[in-house]
């Protein structure tokens, strides 16, 4: 099973939506960490995202762009993404973020426009 520890594999300070906002934005997380990890997955393999373990909190702008952005840009269907992803956290407060990510994925719509990186 593949794992992404947001704090260790990306940044302990996930901030903002686009690369223009910060180096640790939702866009950067999606393009540099999450999408490559999903593409490397084998058949029926799951991807566990460790949400806490160094991260203190998330903003909705980061979570929407980081996770729902995969649907928006047509990298994966929401059904497949919801099957692939699993979430791990030891801090009970992070249950809220897990539920929000799932909600954002379910609410996401394919924009039918290919991804074009935001300029920094």
């Amino acid at each position, binding site marked *: 099973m593949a794992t992404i520890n947001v704090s260790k594999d990306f940044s302990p300070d996930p901030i903002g939506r686009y690369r223009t906002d910060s180096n640790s934005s939702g866009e950067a997380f999606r393009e540099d960490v999450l999408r490559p990890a999903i593409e490397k997955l084998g058949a029926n393999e799951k991807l566990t995202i460790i949400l806490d373990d160094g991260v203190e909190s998330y903003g*909705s*702008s980061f979570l929407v762009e980081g996770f729902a952005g995969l649907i928006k840009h047509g990298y994966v269907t929401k059904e497949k993404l919801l099957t692939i992803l699993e979430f791990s956290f030891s801090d009970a407060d992070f249950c809220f973020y897990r539920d929000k990510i799932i909600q954002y994925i379910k609410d996401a719509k394919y924009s039918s426009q290919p991804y074009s990186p935001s300029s920094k």
Partner: protein
Amino acid sequence: MDNTLSNLEKLIQKQNEILVLFSDQLDSNIADTLIVGLIVAVGSAISAYGFNYLHWHQTEKKKNKLSVVSSLSILIREFEDLSLKYWLSDATDDDPELCIKIKCRHLLINRYVNQYIQLFSGSEHAQIVSLFSNLIYDKVTGDDFESRSRVRSISKATSIAKLCSDVAARLNEDAITL
């Protein structure tokens, strides 16, 4: 509670044993009267204890509810102030500090909302407060939150103030009716 009842039962048993000893030495009529009197006294004591316990339990529950409602009200007021300050100005150097405070306050609000829902489960307010925590998170930390190109948004600030005021008013109602 179980221990207390068990101890009381043992006490009654011992008293009965003492009474039996007394009754052997006293006239049977006097002994009967004495036994009835003691049984009534012990029964009354147990009832009094039960009522006291129930009253204490209700008072503690009420205090707990009031404490959660009060903490939640304060957190929502602080969260509203921080959020309005953030969304009523364009991006500034103070943004990181405000963003951290906003995200931390929301986590705390969410923690207290979970306690509130447990204490007021099934009530109309519990559903509204639960929905509030979700809506306000999307509203405040969505869109251009943590963006260096954020511009002030009066409509967003107004919407935030409305949501917070509505829930604050409902929490006040709870505090009054408790």
